[in-house]
């Protein structure tokens, strides 16, 4: 028996949800899209008094197939590489108009790490009151999974395929949050779509700061990473729990807090459930070396950021998503 109550007036109910709706249903993201979820969580936490500048990418494409738009907030997409500059212009205008409306820039990893990097750096340097959110799905997904400077080492993409001579991407993932934090901005942080309350906390923190802030959200891409959409949260959680994606906060360039990992998982737990790393599990010497390399990268993160939890903590990798009856943990 399906307990779904069919007597409910769904469309009326949709209009009285006890949360702010920034992105509406009917968008065309893939099944289980981590970016769609992360973007929705950001808009929810940020509330209505915001306007958005969105870089070209999946998020922009799947939300705004004219004449439809999934956005319920003021939103603009200009180009791939200028989200930070558009946001800067918006912010300058609102400041001039004496309005408290916040500006949020949204971009993927391509629009942040690569093509939009210069505009981002400029915006940060000039101190605009903009929250820049990067949804990092670690490749150019909108164009069909090409490697970006955010693609992790050894991941297979359509422009870094694995084959006889190559084990996927040869280079390392760019450490964008450190680079961003080096602009000496008041707040830069990473988070993961697997930890909605962490995202909310950080969005709210950034919203309260008058100045440039940066939030880097690890967002799963079932299509590009090669996993079932149902596993989007599971995969993202493992990225955190293995140490491959450190969840950290920096103020004025210094690390001020990290999400401790209570139970550090081996990287293979994360890698083995994604097709983009499948070649690393072949009976092959190079594959074995690359697996160890990824483990070493995770170990390095854990050491550099001190991610290993000393004792159980309500905000660590196990505690941060603990549920409560009645749902208040996500508030």
């Amino acid at each position, binding site marked *: 028996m*399906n*307990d*779904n*109550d069919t007597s*409910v007036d*769904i469309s009326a*109910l*949709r209009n*009285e*949800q*006890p949360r702010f*709706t920034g*992105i*509406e*249903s*009917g*968008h*065309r*993201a893939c*099944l*289980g*899209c*981590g970016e*769609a*979820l992360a973007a*929705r*969580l950001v808009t929810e936490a940020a509330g209505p008094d915001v306007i958005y500048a969105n870089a070209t990418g999946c998020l922009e494409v799947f*939300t*705004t*197939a*004219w*004449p*439809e*738009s*999934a*956005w*319920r*907030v003021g939103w603009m997409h200009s180009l791939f590489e200028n989200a930070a500059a558009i946001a800067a212009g918006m912010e300058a205008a609102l400041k001039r108009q004496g309005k408290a409306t916040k500006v949020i820039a949204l971009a993927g990893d391509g629009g942040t790490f690569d093509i939009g990097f210069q505009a981002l750096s400029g915006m940060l340097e000039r101190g605009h009151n903009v929250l820049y959110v990067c949804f990092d799905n670690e490749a150019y997904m909108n164009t069909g999974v090409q490697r970006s400077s955010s693609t992790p080492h050894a991941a297979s993409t359509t422009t870094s395929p694995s084959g006889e001579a190559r084990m996927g991407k040869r280079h390392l993932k760019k450490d964008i949050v450190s680079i961003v934090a080096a602009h000496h901005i008041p707040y830069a942080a990473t988070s993961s779509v697997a930890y*909605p309350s962490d995202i909310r906390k950080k969005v709210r923190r950034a919203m309260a700061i008058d100045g440039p802030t940066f939030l880097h959200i690890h967002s799963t891409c*079932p299509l590009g990473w090669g996993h*079932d*959409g*149902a*596993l*989007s*949260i*599971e995969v993202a959680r493992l990225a955190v729990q293995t140490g491959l994606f450190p969840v950290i906060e920096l103020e004025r360039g210094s690390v001020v807090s990290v999400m401790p990992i209570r139970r550090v998982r081996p990287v293979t737990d994360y890698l083995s459930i994604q097709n983009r790393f499948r070649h690393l599990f072949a009976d092959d010497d190079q594959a074995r070396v690359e697996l160890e390399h990824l483990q070493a990268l995770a170990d390095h993160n854990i050491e550099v950021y001190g991610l290993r939890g000393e004792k*159980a903590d*309500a905000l660590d990798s*196990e*505690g941060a*998503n*603990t*549920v*409560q*009856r*009645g*749902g208040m*943990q*996500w508030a």
Partner: protein
Amino acid sequence: MGIKMTRGAFARPGTSLEYKTGSWRTQQPEYHHRSAPCHTACPAGEDAQQYLALVEEGRYQLAWENIVRANPLPAITGRVCHHPCESACNRGQYDESIAIHHVERFLGDRAIKEGWDYPVSTPPEQALVVAVVGSGPAGCSAAWHLVRQGYRVDLFEALPMAGGLLHSALPPYRLPRDIMQAELERLLHTGIGFLPGKRLGRDMSLDELQADYPAIFLAPGTQRSRSWDSGGATPSDLHVGLDLLKQWTSIGTIKHWSSVAVIGGGNTAIDLARVLKHAGVESVHVVTFQSLPQSGEQLPDRMPAIAREIDQALEEGVTIHEHRGVQRLVLRGEQVVGVELVHMKEVPDSQDGAKTVTFEGTESILDVDQVIPAIGQVVDPEGLGSLLNHGEFLAADNHGRIPGHPQVLTGGDARGDRGTVSEAIGDGRRAAAQIARMLQQQADPEAREDKPIVLEQLNLNYYEYAPRPEVPVLPVEQRSASAEVQGGLEQQQVHGEGQRCLSCGSCLACDNCWTLCPDMAVLKRSEAPAGEAPYVFDYDYCKGCGLCAHECPSGYITMQAEA
């Protein structure tokens, strides 16, 4: 005809609702209540998961009412039950099982203390009257459930007071008499017509009952001890376990020996061994061919006695000889001076059964001055006429119906296939339901398999490790015949157990599905009918990714292929 292009191709907010992404779906999530293992494991039919949720919300009276709708004697079962709910509890595989029986006991005690009314109204005068014979757990349960369903009940009891086996066989250190009496008294005041001192076969006959009542529930218990001998020999002054226990619980004394062997592995054997120990018997031995319980393992030949009671008996100095049988009595004249023990074990046979085998060459002598068999009781045939059909017990189906006697049902120990208070309470509940169906001429309900949700169907990432609260236990040196050994939990600890409950198969209202749906296809409602999730799926937009089901902590969402 197309839509008119807007200047610069801007779009209006939220217009994506025009695009129904639900058409992409090949499988759909559904909210399904699935039974929690604590519920399916409870012989009395309690749904611990439900009342733990109420406890967490601080609604203690509602939680108690939830229990008594299945089991009217929670203060009693909260003490004496072997709580299979806790063995089944999924949390036991995660860290430690919920202390369900302590929550039950707390609620039962609180109800007595606060005088909470049983959730029932007195049956009308003109209601049909059903006869219940025997006021032990099965009889009390049947009477209660009949009253709940609007029938009047005449509850016949041979003794002057209600309780049956509770009264006669459970030592006060396990079940304090004030608690037992308070609970039974409160129950009997719910409109049950209690008729003490009426023994079947002496004060009324089965035929008379059948003539006077449209339905009869027989719960006479097992009043006659099974005969016992060893190679044809019995001690000259044979004492049977349950009789001794009854004697002791009713008059408070017991014959004094210096060394006793109690034969049997059940609760009676253990209770008696402990009573003897408290009464000053220096050396008390329990001899059983079954195994001592071992943590984490369910041995097929495990002693049926409650593990906690076995542990306490061992603490108190009782010696338990597992895998042993009595080969013969060692007599000096007619006086028992010892028993010859032999290794004995159940060995599986090729017919999926087991037979008890003794092993030659393992014999040994145990010096004792008395042997007390506690190997079980059978139904006293007095007044039952042809119902027993020369057997030891009353054979009945799962609803309690005795074949060939459409008016008569039975339950509890008299069935022979039960052995616990909770099972007896379950029997009473099922029989009452069957009587109601019979009187209303309704068909049997459809048998349905209630497979409980298992740990692997939960998402444990969303739970936090938390230890089970420590329960105070009376130190061995302070134990006596009457002081309750096992303490209870404080309210705060009970509330903590509500929080620890994983809510297996039921909605926690945790908001995970609502929060994690990338398509906003889960909508939250401020009010939902009792027992339903406060969420609904909007299938117009659900793409069927399955994320909600995967991330549902309690396994309340399942994915079903699209029709």
